[in-house]
């Protein structure tokens, strides 16, 4: 220990001797690592798996059952009500839920000003499929229409000022609903069940409404919707249920490869039957995409974070080169001292221990600098690319990896210079 403290003291002394080059080295390493870390944060969070134990068991089935003939079309990313009914006629999935999102206005009574809210209009299995935690109450007993809603924790607090509001009434647009459940803290990021068109980057919904009620009350999808025939989208409860009005996402849970295979076969049979019935003029094109692959499949990833990742990596490299350049200069100026120490009998391994002390100190300074730069950079990125702002938080894994990377970089930056200084030709340096 005493020896270690001695090494640290020597390191600090040599920093004090030439503070500017050292400060520049730290600065450059901090900036490089900070910028890299800020982007790595987004990259890591955006590509993280919100349901690691399930993301390969939840599937989005899509089928090209549309009333027009298209040879090279992919199946629409959104499904019609009738297609969902056909797809859910199978018992193979252990859970299944259709859903879409809509806008609405909520308040407790008509005299209050309306609060704009987002709705997820869905079915019972949604909550179990996506591991949604319930704080109070329960979900709907079946998938029928009913004037019952579940609230997010934040929404309950906002409307009622408390969380346990089971049995309370609220006015959603022009209709009263009773609250049967309140969620606990829940933020699925990225929100992969809604991956179409980068919606998975946005926060979750406030109020959950049964799918049938949503159709009955003519709630329009707030994201993507398309009509492939003459269906009047303002008549969701009637034409919308039968026509080619596409606006639904549909998820099924298929736990085993056998189930997945069986469901694929079911979809194929369905498409064939539809074709035979003349309702499927296009070639058969079924897709069954796992949740883990859905963002890639839709290809809506904005690419800015990826592009920036490439560039920050390059920047980190430059900073590393630069810092090692600076530190090489520093060590070469201290070479005389190194040689003197070796002349006085220090072994190379003792010099390497000294170097390790240097690395530790450098890593400590750099870590602080990198965290500060990283934080500032994240704030800046939130300003400039606000779409990704939900993905800017740090967790233990991220911080630990930053620590490791910082240490590795400090080591790399110190390694070659110190080797060169301690392995140089003793004779010649002393004579100089």
């Amino acid at each position, binding site marked *: 220990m005493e020896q270690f403290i001695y090494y640290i003291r020597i390191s600090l002394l040599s920093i004090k001797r030439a503070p500017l*080059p050292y400060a*520049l080295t730290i*600065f*450059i390493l901090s*900036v*490089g690592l900070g*910028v890299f870390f800020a982007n790595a944060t987004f990259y890591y969070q955006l590509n993280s798996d919100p349901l690691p134990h399930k993301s390969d068991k939840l599937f989005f089935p899509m089928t090209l059952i549309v009333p027009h003939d298209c040879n090279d079309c992919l199946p629409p990313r959104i499904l019609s009500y009738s297609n969902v009914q056909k797809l859910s006629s199978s018992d193979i999935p252990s859970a299944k839920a259709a859903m879409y999102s809509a*806008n609405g*206005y909520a308040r407790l009574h008509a005299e209050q*000003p*309306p609060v*704009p809210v987002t709705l997820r209009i869905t079915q019972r299995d949604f909550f179990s499929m996506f591991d949604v935690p319930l704080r109070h109450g329960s979900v709907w007993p079946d998938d029928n229409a009913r004037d019952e809603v579940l609230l997010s924790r934040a929404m309950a607090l906002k409307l009622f000022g408390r969380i346990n509001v089971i049995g309370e009434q609220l006015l959603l*647009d*022009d209709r009263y609903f009773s609250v049967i459940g309140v969620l606990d803290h829940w933020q699925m990021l990225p929100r992969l069940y809604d991956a179409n068109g980068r919606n998975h980057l946005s926060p979750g919904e406030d109020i959950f409404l049964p799918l049938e009620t949503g159709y009955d009350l*003519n*709630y*329009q999808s*707030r994201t993507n919707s398309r009509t492939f025939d003459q269906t009047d*989208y*303002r008549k969701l409860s009637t034409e919308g249920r039968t026509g080619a009005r596409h606006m639904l996402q549909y998820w099924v849970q298929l736990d085993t490869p056998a189930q997945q295979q069986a469901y694929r076969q079911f979809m194929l049979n369905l498409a064939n039957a539809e074709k035979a019935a003349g309702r499927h003029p296009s070639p058969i094109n079924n897709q069954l995409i796992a949740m883990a692959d859905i963002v890639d499949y839709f290809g809506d990833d*904005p*690419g*800015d974070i*990826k*592009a*920036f990742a*490439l*560039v*920050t990596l*390059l*920047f980190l*490299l*430059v*900073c590393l*080169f*630069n810092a*090692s*350049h*600076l530190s*090489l*200069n520093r060590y*070469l*100026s201290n070479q005389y001292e190194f040689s003197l120490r070796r002349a006085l009998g220090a072994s190379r391994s003792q010099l390497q221990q000294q170097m390790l002390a240097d690395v530790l100190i450098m890593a400590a300074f750099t870590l602080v600098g990198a965290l500060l730069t990283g934080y500032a950079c994240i704030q*800046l*990125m939130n*300003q*400039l*690319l*606000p*779409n990704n702002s939900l993905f800017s938080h740090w967790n233990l894994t991220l911080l630990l990896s930053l620590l490791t990377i910082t240490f590795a970089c400090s080591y790399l930056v110190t390694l*070659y210079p110190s080797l*060169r200084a301690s392995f140089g030709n003793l004779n010649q340096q002393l004579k100089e």
Partner: protein
Amino acid sequence: MSFYLLCKVLFSRKVVTTLLLLQLAMALALLLNSILLAQQTQQQLTQPTGLDLEHTLQVQLKPATASLRVYPALQDLLDRQLQAVQAIPGVIAAAYANQSVLVQGGNGGNLYDIEQEERTNVPYVPLYFVSKDFFTVLNVNVLQGELPHYTTPFGDTAQPEVILTQSIAEQLFAGQPAVGREVNLGRVAAVISDFYGQRRSDNVMFNSLQVTPPYSVDWGYSILLRTEPAQTAAVRQQLANVLRAVEPNIELFHISNLAEQHQRVYSNEYGLAMLLAILTALMLLVTMISSYSSTHFHALKRQQEIGIKRALGATKITIALELLAENWLCTALGALFGLGLALFLNQALAQVISIPPLNWWLPLLTSAILLLCVTLATWYPASIATRVSPASATKAL
């Protein structure tokens, strides 16, 4: 100093020179690509829109109760709102529309000449339902035909006539007069000059319009108005209150002029270009530090050498030039490698974002910027180095 000796000095310090070269190359690659991206964003933001961006205001809003979203209550609301807005001093014209212009995406559908559906079908063209003053608000020119004189009321059995922008008319009818032809939405009544509708359509100038109230306002609607240039700010300030006074049960999403809206549509590109620009500035700073410290250090290391040269008759300027020349040579070499790297980075970036390819003059410009930065950074240590006293530097230990 001869080029040969310069190279010799440079390459006698293999590791340091390699490090410096790599840095310079990467700095150039990054600089080049971020300028490209910034340039592209700039172009996107300055492309013609056919609109008076500064003096056209837009309000995006939605009735907050379901009863106001159905006719005839909706028609009444729209009329009252228009009337109130038109009464604000400084407003030249006001109109409602189912969606605003200069937006990311919105309402639209396929459009084709019904005589030649196969050949002319355009998969997605924005469809605007507007009130009759919409054209005055946007200040567009009527190029063919005549604008409808009245608003087709909601639910009218007669199909409203269609107005096309020049680009889409051209696309559908290939130079033939469009007025009187039938498209899947109805009979074409007029062709107007182009304006920027939605970014997601194939051509941002493709637009189709009908003078009729919005089919549905479940996604909100827009009120657009053009003001006297001097009164834009004043009008804008009053808008929210005027609209709330007409009907408090509305949600105002935002009020902005079209210039702001234009920026919002490209905010992602703008953000990325800004970030890259900041990163490039940092990169240049780091490169400058590197040049500075390398010159400083080597001048220190070579004090004796510089002293000898001074004794042999080199002037201060010669010494400074020698040091600068070393860095210039290094920069030139780095820039050369950087060009290759820039090409590679450009292609890699093109995989994930849209970025224009390299052109011939940008490498020259960026190399010049790099050279300037390196010169600036080298200047101080080089001038310090020339102050070496030859007398003391040439003395033995």
